């Protein structure tokens, strides 16, 4: 088998592949239209369900003192304003036995006495119910703690004022209560300048983009499985293999076609993920849409395309030698799981800051380069971005070459099936 490939034949076959794809309505719906719609729907459903089923907080005031009453009123008012459903119940047992109640706040007996004394501390008890909405309960607890901190601050201010009057001195309450204070943090960019909003959001968007690579590897393998094993199963391969197209051109065209389709699918998934996150961000009163970086999106598309080629090339030797789509999918899932593991790691680990020895070991895996390219962009290390992209390109070409080199017409055609 010669090294050279006939580009015009690849283009002809690629045309055929893409024409088939664009005519396959089911494929277009499932790969392009459904992912963003499904993810937006999931986001909306999450929001709607959260609105429909607010967290229920039970307030139990066991103390009849005026300070306890004031606190109870303040908690009920602030928590209701924050969207929680507040139930004022008589006793703890009743609240604990009611599974609809997520959080219980108890103002115990003696609260007023303790809160107004000079030598005792008043306590409030909180009970949190275990369950799947743990994060929401944590948010509710923080809200309760916020109200308690504000109320505690009011009482301490009164006490300090009273002490000052008794001592006949003039004081600044904050200077007594909180003599050391942290100013609001100032974000600085990687260049040390004050950061803009987009500088703050960019790492998050980059992490999102890295995570979105995990949506790419599986469809890429699926397309190439359908392209090669499917072509064999549909009995359309043998005439092609016997034509001047050749195995190498056949595989290269299939790889490029699967990469283009995979990229379209990936961008569609990314759009869906973006809209999903935006929906949820809107729910918590934040915004993301205003910080899209076209350079980052372009880099993501380029790296995605190369990542798909690398994934396909890694899967090809196994896929092309399996008998059916099911066994090919099982084999390919091993490769795609490797990709998924890396991209999930990329969501939480800053590869850019890993020790150099670890980084060198990881550089053998193509997925490292796609993660590093995106992370380096965030750090404005454009030399590394270019280097990672270039290495990924070279790796992809080498992998395609190696995978086609070990395949011949007979292996691709017959796999392990023999007809005599």
């Amino acid at each position: 088998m010669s090294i050279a490939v006939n580009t015009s034949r690849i283009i002809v076959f690629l045309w055929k592949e893409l024409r088939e794809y664009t005519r396959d309505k089911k494929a277009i719906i499932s790969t392009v239209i459904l992912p963003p719609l499904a993810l937006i729907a999931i986001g909306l459903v999450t929001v709607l369900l959260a609105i429909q089923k607010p967290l229920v907080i039970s307030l139990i005031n066991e103390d009849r003192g005026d300070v306890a009453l004031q606190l109870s009123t303040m908690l009920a008012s602030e928590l209701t304003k924050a969207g929680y459903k507040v139930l004022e119940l008589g006793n703890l047992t009743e609240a604990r036995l009611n599974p609809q109640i997520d959080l219980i706040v108890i103002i115990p007996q003696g609260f007023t006495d303790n809160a107004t004394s000079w030598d005792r501390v008043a306590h409030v008890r909180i009970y949190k119910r275990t369950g799947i909405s743990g994060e929401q309960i944590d948010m509710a607890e923080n809200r309760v703690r916020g109200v308690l901190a504000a109320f505690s601050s009011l009482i301490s201010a009164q006490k300090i004022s009273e002490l000052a009057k008794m001592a006949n001195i003039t004081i600044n309450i904050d200077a007594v209560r909180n003599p050391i204070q942290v100013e609001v943090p100032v974000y600085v960019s990687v260049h040390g300048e004050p950061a803009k909003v987009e500088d703050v959001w960019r790492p998050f968007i980059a992490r999102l983009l890295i995570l979105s690579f995990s949506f790419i590897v599986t469809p890429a393998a699926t397309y190439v499985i359908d392209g090669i094993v499917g072509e064999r199963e549909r009995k359309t391969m043998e005439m092609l293999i016997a034509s001047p197209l050749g195995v190498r051109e056949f595989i290269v065209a299939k790889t490029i076609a699967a990469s283009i389709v995979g990229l379209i699918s990936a961008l569609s998934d990314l759009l869906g993920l973006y809209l999903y996150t935006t929906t949820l961000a809107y729910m918590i009163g934040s915004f993301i849409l205003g910080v899209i970086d076209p350079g980052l999106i372009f880099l993501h598309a380029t790296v995605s395309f190369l990542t798909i080629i690398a994934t396909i090339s890694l899967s090809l030797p196994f896929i092309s030698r399996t008998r059916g789509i099911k066994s090919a999918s099982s084999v390919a899932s091993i490769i795609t799981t490797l990709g998924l593991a890396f991209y999930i790691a990329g969501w939480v680990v800053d590869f850019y800051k890993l020790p150099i020895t670890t980084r060198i070991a990881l550089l053998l895996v193509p997925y490292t380069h796609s993660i590093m390219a995106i992370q380096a962009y965030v750090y404005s290390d454009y030399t590394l971005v270019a280097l990672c992209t270039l290495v990924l390109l070279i790796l992809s070409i080498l992998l395609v070459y190696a995978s086609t080199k070990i395949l011949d017409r007979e292996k691709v055609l017959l796999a392990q099936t023999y007809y005599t």
Partner: protein
Amino acid sequence: MFLLGDITVSAESVYKEYGSIVALRGVTLKVGPGEIYGLVGPNGSGKTTLLRILAGIVKPTRGVVKIYGYDPYREFEETRKYIGYLPEDANTYDLLSGYEHLKLYAKIYGLSRDAVEYGAELSQLGERLRDHASTYSRGMKRRLLLALVLMRRPMIALLDEPTSGLDVYASVAVRNTIRKYTQETGATVIVSSHNMLEIEYLCTRVGLIYKGVIVDEGSPRELVVKHGASNLEEAFVKAIGEYSSEYQ
């Protein structure tokens, strides 16, 4: 039988093993220009493997195969201009029209628009060529596939069960296309079939293949006379019976 320059396809002691399965056990074959050579044998006798080896897509384990003096497997590119190969269970692309199939293969082979028109004529699909292949009957698909093979006028056509699974009308149409093609071009055709009537109608010479060996060879008439049979089917059964009693 042939002068050296007359041989277009030759196989000499060809073996093919797939692991422990032996598909061909020393097949020797010589086919001259303009011949229509029929390969007849039961399922699993090695017809498909032999045609695949002649087409250059499967490598023989041992033996020598030549197409116009070239090794079809090692000199794959060189032999493409001579060989047209129709696999037994070949299929069309559902989402492409007949015309698009013709154009695709014309471009792969680097053919002109005339070849596409010739392919359209061979397919006899007329206006239906504009429809997606998913709407074609089995017979229409087979005619289209045969047209894809013959549109570039190959000097050697290797046809594996070209009428398999077709009804009488579709089979007749395919047979007539093959015969017309050979008359027009003088091409060599090697065709495998289970249908003895088809073989008698089409072939100038027949090879009876059984368990990976060509057990007898000759014109349909010669084989019938040689085995004292009333038709080719009977001659085939007798030839296999004689071979089995002699070697097993």
